[in-house]
């Protein structure tokens, strides 16, 4: 666990990519398999999604049904992606957030800026 930070960052990205599944439906980018969004992986997640958001994609759909943990950095990244989508007149849709995550979204009132959907 005392790995050089550069290596750790690569490592995290690799883990993130393994669990995450990104697909495209029409003008929507869908992300599934997010296990957690925390200080450790949030910016890697953001970069990964932004890279995948090629024109003319507008909306970002994130399945949070498996996400067990979301901290303030994770929230920050969701806000950043919200801005990305808004710039293209799109929106961020959070699908089936697990109860713990939904609780945090509500506590920070973030459920007001995202579309929170139960499927």
């Amino acid at each position, binding site marked *: 666990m005392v790995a050089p*930070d550069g290596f750790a960052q690569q490592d995290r990205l690799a883990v993130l990519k393994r669990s995450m599944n990104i697909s495209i439906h029409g003008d929507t980018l869908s992300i599934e398999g997010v296990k957690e969004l*925390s*200080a*450790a992986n949030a910016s890697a997640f953001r970069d990964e999604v932004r890279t995948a958001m090629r024109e003319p994609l507008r909306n970002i759909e994130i399945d949070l049904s498996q996400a067990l943990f979301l901290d*303030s950095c994770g929230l920050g990244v969701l*806000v950043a992606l919200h801005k990305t989508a808004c710039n293209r007149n799109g929106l961020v849709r959070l699908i089936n957030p697990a*109860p713990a995550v939904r609780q945090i979204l509500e506590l*920070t009132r973030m459920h*007001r800026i995202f579309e929170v959907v*139960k499927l």
Partner: protein
Amino acid sequence: MSESPDKSTRCITLRLTLNCDLAEVRPATLALRGFLAEHGVPGEELVACELALAEACNNAINHADDTSRHMRIGVEAACSPTEIEIRVSDHTSGFDWPDRVELPDPTCERGRGVFLIQSLMNSSTYLRGRGENCLVMRKSRSPHGDRFPSDDPLNLEDVTLKLAENERIITDMAEELCSCYESFSAIFRYSSEQKRAVGLEDFSRQLLDDLLQITAADWYLLRLVAPGTGDLRVFAASEPGLLTPPLPISSSPTRPVAWEVDAAIKRRDIWFEHKGSISATDPLAVAKGVSTGFIHPIIFGETLIGTVAVGKAGLHNPLTAAKINVVHTFADFLAIQIVNARIQEERVNALLVARDLEIARNIQRSLLLKTLPQLPGFGLAGHCESARQVGGDFYDVIKLSDTSLLLVIADVMGKGIPAAMFAAIMRSLVRALPDLARHPSELLARVNRLLFDELSEVDMFITAQLAFVDAEENRLVAASAGHCPMLITAGYGSQIKMISPEGMPLGILPDAGFGDEATPLEESCRLLLYTDGLTEARDVHGELFGQERLVEWMRQRSDDQRTAGKLKEDLAAELARFQANMALNDDQTFLILAR
């Protein structure tokens, strides 16, 4: 990360340290979670403690400078039956711990860490020391927390974790289900209630009262777009204090004057917290003081129907996502009901208008004589055709003696029942004053005086024409109250003369004067009394029938020997031909006297 649970007190205290690396935070929080779960801390409290620790560690790592980056961060957690205490010690130069952090703007990417700690924990204190600082966070345990006393901490940890997690999921699903069930059952109930003729206002009030119950909100305010003005007008409110004036839907260059208007213009939910950020003039802010909630625009298709604001007192207990969904469902349902009610209302109004017209037509029909009294040596025929929007035309023939009668034709300006009523009154008055019939001007003056107050009160007036016909002397005395001239053939048919004595319509001046005009009734002469519905009849191209055409019609018929009845049919046919099945704009009434 290294962990050293204090075995002597059976895991009552957890101690661990971690490197200054964000990747080590999550394992540390999971360790805390396991430790707390083992002590029967339920799911929701686990999430809170886990997140608070993560935020505290993130802070410590992000504030580390080059020196402190190489020092380990200490975490201590203690769990008593009544309280959880978590201590995080860092070696940074420290920072100022705010007393109370507000949420940053929703579009801000940072600044929620300390807010989360303060919201999730009962207390948090940051103790700054030389070379080391310590954040102490405490959370009270709910009384039913410790339900799983343990002999086997390893297995129990897993079981308790799962149980707590499941419990939380079930609670959540139950809430969601309850909300759905309640909203659906309410909506079904309302659907059936709507069939019983409950007014839209009562209906909305009942619906929104129930919405408050389901969402545990404290107040609502429903505004609908007013049909004429387009203002947002209060339609229903949970308390009288919310009955505020209408809001025009217009945005100023800077910002809208009210959040409700903002929601109406942007067509999306607007949230409000009644504190600094809300404008001091906003009606909701003024009426409700400290409260939190949101305004939802009610939209049907593309049309804005109104806005509904739902709020809760205080700032610390905002509406959950499930409750927001319930509000949305109710608003959608209400929109449909409002649109339905408006369509229904239009239908009822149309029926009322039709009924009104039917009554007016019946009154008008009752005024017309079935058979006209006849005069020796003369033929007499009358015609009255009502427009769809019945006016106040009528004619009357009053027999005064064996050799004299009074012809009356009148046009009450106005439509529907009021016009028909005045026609009935006017007819009765004229019939009640037979003594004045030989001097029609006096009769008109008298009728004017009698009707003036009533007519001027409703801004109506009547044009009328009277003709006293004397068969013995073969002459006629006419008087007019602003009515179109009567036409008579003169000089044995070659000429058409207009008789148009001076006089104002009835109901204009209280003491109006009228003049009589006498004319001989020559051999084979024809007299035509009519209302302006004839001369103002239009053909398909919009051209008027006009007086000239009427005069021409009379001239062409001057030397034929048809009876008054035949002439009446001829003129009616002429008019029908001219109008070519066009709907009548005004009643068409005329009387023909033929010698």
